[in-house]
């Protein structure tokens, strides 16, 4: 077997075509991209590592706190899920948190998708002075960490007496440089110039072109961007943590309070229940639309 593998014939195939290894290790030209058993095993390990913490969250959330704090840890779901959910609901206002997160992530993704499509279309298909410089500027803004604006934003928000209100979380996230870049990449390839020209010849102004030509073509990319922004906004932590309190939290802020004091007296199962409740909505979206999200990321639209 080893001899078959190490014969120099494969390397010297050009000189001795008939010496190429046969049988199990024979390679035909079309086989080069077919997965071998090693690839399956490695990917299975990766899938287990990725999914296990999610599974275990469910296990912990459905057992009692005492059971979770024992060694060895529980491996199978228990029957306490409902009790833990009610406790988590009492400890942190999970209902309000879920509603708030939905409102925030919904507004943020709607506005980001709309503005990104407009700007992405302009950068991809319209000629104007300073286009390249402005596009570079858009990309450059991606590198600025949010920490750099937090302190003044906090002052503005408190001065407007918007502390603890959702608009203070929504407004700073209305646009995203990533979204503009994403839509530009997509529309550069997906939208032919001829279509815009034809619409112009027919007398359509820019707004009509946006509505009747750009939006229909951009719809798949808009959907993917919307989902990516929704996930990002739902999971955003730093700024909501600074500006919101437990009276009006997003899911992440509520979770930070549940897990805040991880002393021994705290019911670990309830903490895990909070994590489960906070993650479940997105996991459900993923279970339903996962293929499309993956397709969107791999379609090449995110490529640099």
């Amino acid at each position: 077997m080893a001899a078959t593998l190490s014969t120099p014939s494969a390397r010297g195939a050009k000189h001795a075509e008939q010496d190429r290894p046969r049988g199990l290790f024979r390679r035909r030209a079309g086989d080069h991209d077919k997965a071998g058993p090693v690839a399956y095993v490695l990917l299975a390990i990766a899938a287990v590592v990725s999914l296990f913490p999610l599974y275990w969250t469910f296990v912990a959330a459905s057992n009692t706190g005492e059971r979770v704090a024992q060694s060895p840890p529980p491996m199978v779901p228990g029957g306490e899920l409902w009790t833990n959910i009610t406790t988590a609901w009492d400890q942190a206002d999970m209902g309000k948190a879920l509603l708030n997160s939905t409102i925030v992530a919904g507004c943020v993704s709607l506005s980001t998708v709309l503005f990104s499509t407009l700007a992405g279309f302009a950068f991809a298909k319209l000629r104007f002075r300073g286009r390249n410089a402005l596009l570079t500027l858009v990309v450059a803004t991606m590198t600025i960490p949010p920490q750099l604006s937090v302190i003044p934003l906090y002052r503005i928000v408190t001065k407007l007496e918007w502390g603890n209100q959702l608009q203070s979380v929504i407004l700073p996230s209305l646009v995203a440089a990533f979204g503009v870049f994403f839509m530009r990449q997509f529309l550069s390839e997906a939208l032919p110039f001829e279509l815009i020209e034809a619409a112009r010849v027919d007398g359509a102004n820019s707004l009509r072109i946006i509505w009747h030509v750009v939006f229909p073509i951009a719809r798949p990319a808009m959907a993917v961007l919307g989902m990516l922004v929704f996930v990002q906004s739902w999971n955003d932590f730093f700024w909501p943590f600074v500006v919101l309190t437990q009276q009006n939290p997003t899911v992440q802020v509520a979770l930070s309070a549940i897990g805040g004091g991880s002393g021994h007296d705290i019911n670990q199962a309830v903490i895990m229940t909070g994590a489960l409740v906070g993650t479940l909505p997105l996991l459900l979206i993923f279970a339903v639309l996962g293929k499309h999200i993956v397709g969107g990321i791999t379609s090449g639209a995110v490529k640099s």
Partner: protein
Amino acid sequence: MATHVRAEAPPARPAWRSRLYRFDLKASPYAFIAPFFLCFAAFGLFPLIWTGWLSLHYVDLLKPDVMEWRGFGNYTRLWSNDQFWNALRNTFTIGVISTVPQLLTALGLAHLLNYRMRGRGFFRVAILAPYATSIAAATLVFVQLFNPDYGFINWMLGAVGIHPNWYSDTWPSQIAISTIVTWRWTGYNALIYLAAMQAVPKDLYEAASLDGANRWQQFTRITVPSIRPTILFTIIVSTIGATQLFGEPMLFGGGVGVSGGSAHQFQTLSLYLYELGWPSRQLGRASAVAWTMLLLLLLIGLAQFLITRYRKRNELGA
């Protein structure tokens, strides 16, 4: 003469329309990009400059209108402070031990996912699933898994006889935090790599495999060089993410929170910024940390730019 005049003055309505048309053509691009730039100016650029101005003053969180000029005092004080250097070092080490394994694993996974196989869709969605979890949820889960007394990880490691304390020791706690980051982002990066790999022409591989190149050689000689721009892009994005690390170390610290562990063993720059600005109420000093972060990012960006240029020049010279 008369005919000439008539030709020069077309009917009024079309003239008005064509001027409108030209105005639309000229102005609408700016109208379309305006929302982005207006929002960025209001919520990004203006606060950024304001932060710079604040960093030159003494400002109390509770009396923000009273500003005392300090010049560069906040900065000199910061740079002579051990806790700042500790936070900077932690940000760097956590950044390295989370970014490097993350991107290498992502590259390998992308390569595997690029094969023709059964269940490809399942594997892709499965490795992306951690991306759907939040910092808060993921950290809470890993705090449990890393628990030194009853956590799943020590229960497994106990079989080989080691019991690291993932909370109190410096390296274990930093590795634990890096694990959370790596877990959440590896799949996402793998899919970005996969997108780039799918654009690599298939006949390159066909030719290589006919020439007898094995899969490892194909990977290192064809795949990696072909997607180098994407790799650079992910390195930059992960570096930026690593400098901002906040939620993971903060929630990993549990009750201790922003101090980043009992001996600040995993306090990052962002945590230090928050500790100065809110619990310590010193907005001026916190602003100085923020601007130091910007300075660092600029330095990293410059270094990356110089390295790419150096490599390009070397390749051309060779």
